[in-house]
Each structure stands twice: as C-alpha cells, then as structure tokens.
C-alpha cells in the first residue's frame, strides 16, 4: 500500500531539509479522496519525542519526521513543536481507527512516563467545542461517552435533517451527563468551515474545511491545556525539610467510592499496568495505597478520603511524567471531571466533629 499524499509530501520535504508550515503542507496535498489529519498532543518530559518509536528519523530544525515501516503500509509521523515548551503535536494521516495508528498509540503508552498524552479536563474539552461557535453553528454529528461507574461505552449519532440543526456541543455533553456518562469524543461539523473529531485524550482529527481554524483554535487550545497540565505536574516531588506540596486532586462527577468494594476498583486499576506496584496501607473505604512506577522509581501515595475524590501525593522521588501518567490513568478510568492541585482547606472546627 502506498503512502498517503500527506505522508509522501511530508517525507519528501523532510528529506529535502525544508518542511513547509503545517497549514501549507495540508493545503498542498488537498484532493480526492480527502485525507484526514490526525493529531495527538503530547507532553515531552524526558528525552526526544521518537525515542521509543522504530523507523527512519529525519530531523529538520526543531521538527522531526519519522517514517514507520509496517506490513499494512508505511506511514509518516511529524513531531511538530508548539509555542508551549515541552508540548508537541504528533501528526499523521493514518486514520485513528486504523491498526497502524493503534500501533502509534501503543508506542505512546510504552513511552510513558518520558512522553505522555494529555487527558483533558472536562471544561477544557467542552471549551474546544464552544470555541468554534464564532465561526458558525457547531453541530455534533456523533458522540462517544463512557458510563461513570463502569467501563460501558455508548456512541450516539445524529442524522442531518433539512429542517433542524443537530445539537450543539454543550447540549450533547449535557445530555450525556444526564445519562450518567462522560463524553470521550465529539465529531463536530460547522457548515462550510470545519469537519473535525475531538478526543478527550488530547487529540483531534481534521477531516476538512479551513485548516487555519483547526490550527488556531483546536491545536492552540490543545497545546495550552497540555502546557497547563505539564506545569501542574512539574516539581512536585517532596524535598527533605520542606513542606509537603499539595496533592493532585482528581474530582469525580459523582460520589463513586462509598464502600470498600468501591475503592477496590482503584486498587484493581493500580494493579493493572506492569509498570506499577502497590501496597494497600488502609482500606475501609478510606483508602491509602503506596505506589511505585518502576519506569523511573517515582513513588506516590494514592488516597481516597471522600467518595468523589482521589488524591495523589508524590513521594521524595516523583517525576512529572510518572505523576502525569498515574493521575491521568485514574482520571480516565473513573471518568473524572478534572485534575488540579488541592486547594488549601480552611481549618475545621472541632465542634463540628462532635456528636454529643
């Protein structure tokens, strides 16, 4: 199978040592059949972006292009630096449903914690959709969501009607939340402007329309959200003789941890990846688990002290990448709303804790 027009042009440009701007590259290869441009926004914590990828690498200035050899057809990836330090867009034209892109996603998983994707906060994801409204009526063509309390996924599609617009992103998200689900992807359409697929695991696919809008609105916001996540996770390891930094708080939309069997699901999640080991210190359902990431020795305490919150407290060795990977894994699994630093709580009156 030959490479796509985008991949051919990208690879040729890389080998010539002069890669056009991304928008020009996309414009130069427009034609039939249309080619989708798939973007994964990633946080580079250590090393180089393609360290764990196999293929032929060409570096052109700060941009890197990798040709990946695959029996299903070779393909090309572009690591495009953003204006945000440490944040890259990983760009290709293999459809995100293609087995070859799944290979890219698997390599991203094994690149953790050096390279991590960004699981968007609920509000950042919702803002992506609403931010497009200045360019026209934004319609949701399809939406996938996952149930908040278990891993069942639901996909909803809306047919085009001549007489009525399909729902806008806010309405669709609200509808999903009323059904106790958490939105994972949105396929959006703005007539004559943009056709795009947004993923909460920080990524987007451009299907057609004005690439400038896609780049200036979607890609810029993905980069901003990933940069905020990067800054949140950096420098959080404990230091001897210094106050313990505030933990990272993962907030769930519903109180999911009311019993020891509920918090057992957190333990199961921590036991799943080979890179992690854990020991339960306390569980009833107040949960305290000591966790190590064997990738780089980072260690953490994972706590559940409220039914709608998971907290991750870094230990004395805790890389930004390992913290990001652990926090996002739990956020994704439990369909959490957002990830932030825990605010300093107001002191509690002991009288409020007396029952007599």
């Amino acid at each position, binding site marked *: 199978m030959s490479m796509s027009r985008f991949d051919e042009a990208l690879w040729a440009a890389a080998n010539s040592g002069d890669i056009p701007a991304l928008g020009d590259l996309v414009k130069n290869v427009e034609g039939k059949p249309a080619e989708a441009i798939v973007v994964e926004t990633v946080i580079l914590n250590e090393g180089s972006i393609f360290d764990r990828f196999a293929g032929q690498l060409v570096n052109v200035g700060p941009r890197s292009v990798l040709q990946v050899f695959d029996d299903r057809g070779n393909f090309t990836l572009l690591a495009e630096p953003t204006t945000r330090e440490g944040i890259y867009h990983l760009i290709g034209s293999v459809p995100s449903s293609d087995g070859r892109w799944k290979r890219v996603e698997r390599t991203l998983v094994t690149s953790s914690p050096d390279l991590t994707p960004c699981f968007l906060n609920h509000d950042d994801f919702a803002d992506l959709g609403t931010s497009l409204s200045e360019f026209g009526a934004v319609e949701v063509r399809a939406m996938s969501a996952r149930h908040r309390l278990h891993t069942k996924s639901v996909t909803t599609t809306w047919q085009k009607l001549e007489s009525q617009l399909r729902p806008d992103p806010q309405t669709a998200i609200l509808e999903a939340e009323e059904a106790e689900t958490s939105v994972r992807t949105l396929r959006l359409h703005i007539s004559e402007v943009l056709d795009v697929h947004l993923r909460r695991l920080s990524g987007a696919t451009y299907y057609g329309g004005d690439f400038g809008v896609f780049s200036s609105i979607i890609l810029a916001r993905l980069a901003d959200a990933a940069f905020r996540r990067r800054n949140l996770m950096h420098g959080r390891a404990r230091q001897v003789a210094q106050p313990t930094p505030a933990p990272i708080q993962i907030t769930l939309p519903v109180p999911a941890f009311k019993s020891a069997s509920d918090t057992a699901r957190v333990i199961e999640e921590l036991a799943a990846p080979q890179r992690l080991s*854990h020991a*339960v210190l306390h569980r009833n359902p107040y949960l305290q688990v000591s966790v190590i990431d064997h990738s780089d020795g980072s260690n953490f305490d994972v706590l559940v002290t409220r039914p709608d919150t998971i907290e991750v407290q870094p230990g004395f060795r805790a890389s930004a990448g390992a913290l990001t990977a652990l926090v996002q894994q739990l956020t994704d699994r439990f369909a959490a709303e957002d990830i932030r630093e825990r605010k300093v709580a107001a002191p509690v*009156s002991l009288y409020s804790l007396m029952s007599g």
Partner: protein
Amino acid sequence: MARRRSKAIQGDDLLREYERYDQHVDVVSILHWVFTESVELPGTVRHFERFPSIRVDGKTLTPDFTVLFHDGTAIIGEVASLALHQNSVDKLLSQLANYSAITRVPASATNNADVSDPDVLLLVPNSRGLTAIRRIHECIDDSAHDYQPVKPPVVAQYAKGDSEYTLQRLPDPRNGILAAGDRSQHLGLFLDSDFTAKAEHFASNKVAFRFINDSPATLYLATHLVLQTLPTQYFLSGQQVDVKPADLAELIRSQYGGGIRAGDIKQALELLQHAGYALDNRDGTWAVSLKPLRSRTESDVHRVIVEKAVKRAKSVIIPRERPAELPDQGALFDL
C-alpha cells in the same frame, strides 16, 4: 550463602501488626492534626512533638507524642493495643509511670521546657477500653504494685469507622481528667463527647509524617523500604544495592522527622531476606534487590513479602564473590 536458622515466619502475625501500626499512625496523626491544624486548639499549643525523646533519670523515654501548651501544662500521649496478659499490662504501666515522672517536654525541635504535673493520655482501641480502665485501676488499687501515679492516667478509646475514627474519654469515675489549665478550649472538651475525626482531615498529616515514635511494624517498614526509600535513593544503581541500616534509618528520619532506628531497618531487612529480596553481607551492609516484587497470586507488595517470607522464597540476590586467592608464589628466599 547459607541462611541462619530462625523461627518460622508467621504471616498472620505480620499482617496483624501491619494493620495495627497503621491504625496507631492514624490515631497519632489525628491528634497531630487536632493540635496543629484545627480552629480551636493550635492557638493554645506552644509545641507538638511527634517524635519526642526525653531523658529522665538516665532513661530515654519515647512517648508517642507530647503537647506543650502556652500555659505551661502538657500532655504526654501514648497509643497502645493492650494485650490481656499481665506482662503486657505491667509493661504499659511501667511506661506510664515513667511518663508521670517527666518534668521537661520538647518546646521546639531542639529545646525542652519545664512542665509540672503533665497529664498522661493513653489511647487504646475500643475493644480494649473497659479492660484498660479496669486493669490499670486494679494495679493502682493494689498498694503492692509499682504503679502508683500521683494522678491517674486519662484513658481514651478509639474506634475505627468507615472513613473516620471516633475518640472518647472513657466515662469511668476512676478515669483521669485532662487538665484545662488556663485554656478555654482544650482536648478534654472534645474527648468527653463522641469526637469523630474524618480521614479527609488527617490523611495529609499521616502522609507527611508516615511513622510514629514506636518501632514500626516490621512488614510496614519493609514495604516502605521497597516502595519508597530504596527506589527514591537508589533507582539508578542497578538491580541490587548494598545498604547500611543506620544510613537508611537516618535517611527516613530526615524525610519524615523521626521514629525509625537502625535496629528497625535491620529487622525489616531480615524479613526481606526471608522473602529472598535481601541478604546480610555480614559486614554491616545488606544487599537489597531493586527488582519489582511480584507473585503469581498476589499483587499487593506487602502481601507478596509475607507470601514469599513464609515460603522462604529463593533469593534473587546475587551474592558477592569471594576475591580470588593469590596463587602461592613460594618464598623469595628458600632457606
């Protein structure tokens, strides 16, 4: 290297001690939080010490915490899981008697201050509350018993709930009463009620300090070494590392404030040796594996340690090679 023969590892005992120690850490963390972070009490406290070490009559006393108040009074705190046999009671009362003799408590990390007539507060699990009161006062009432305090200790019990602990001073007329001193707000007001501390309030304190002044449960410390101390300090050192117990104890004390002695580390390393994960080099150092501790049937590391220690798992440690002996070169001058 042949292992020293030692008695069989009792897995259930290790797990029970682990759980009990964790509860004691919770209880001390609750008191630490109450005295340093609540609305009412921090203003009355001159210094809360979680890892006190107090010299009295040539002995070093290590209660579980001390609180020095601005009015010059103090609380000496001890958390205990009183066993029913008389030895356990006598040992505890000997501790409490020593605490009653304390006249100076920590006023900062480096200084002590004089106190008079401090209160001794004993916290026991609710399964032992009434027994504790009865046994303590049986001894006090026995004029032949060594324990004859000027004023009785204050016995409170703690009950572990779902995501909280309830603390209560036992309402026995013989029980001691915490002195209010010049303080309008004091702990006694709250312990005389069903005072319930939630995990969301004290958990940060527990994570920050992690240990208490008592020797830690061996399994608790071994698990901490495997999951936190060793990877933090030696992750880049290869598959195994040689460590000195005193160095690890000092490192943990520097990180968490106290509570850990070299002997505690040695016991934890002995347990890891039974699990095949450490080896006594017999020169004051121990070789410890940095590999993940895994088992086919168990994912929780502290349970993996128990499983392997009970089975005396095959060691993953590569013993140090004996240096090759020099060949006999004979004498320079044959006589």
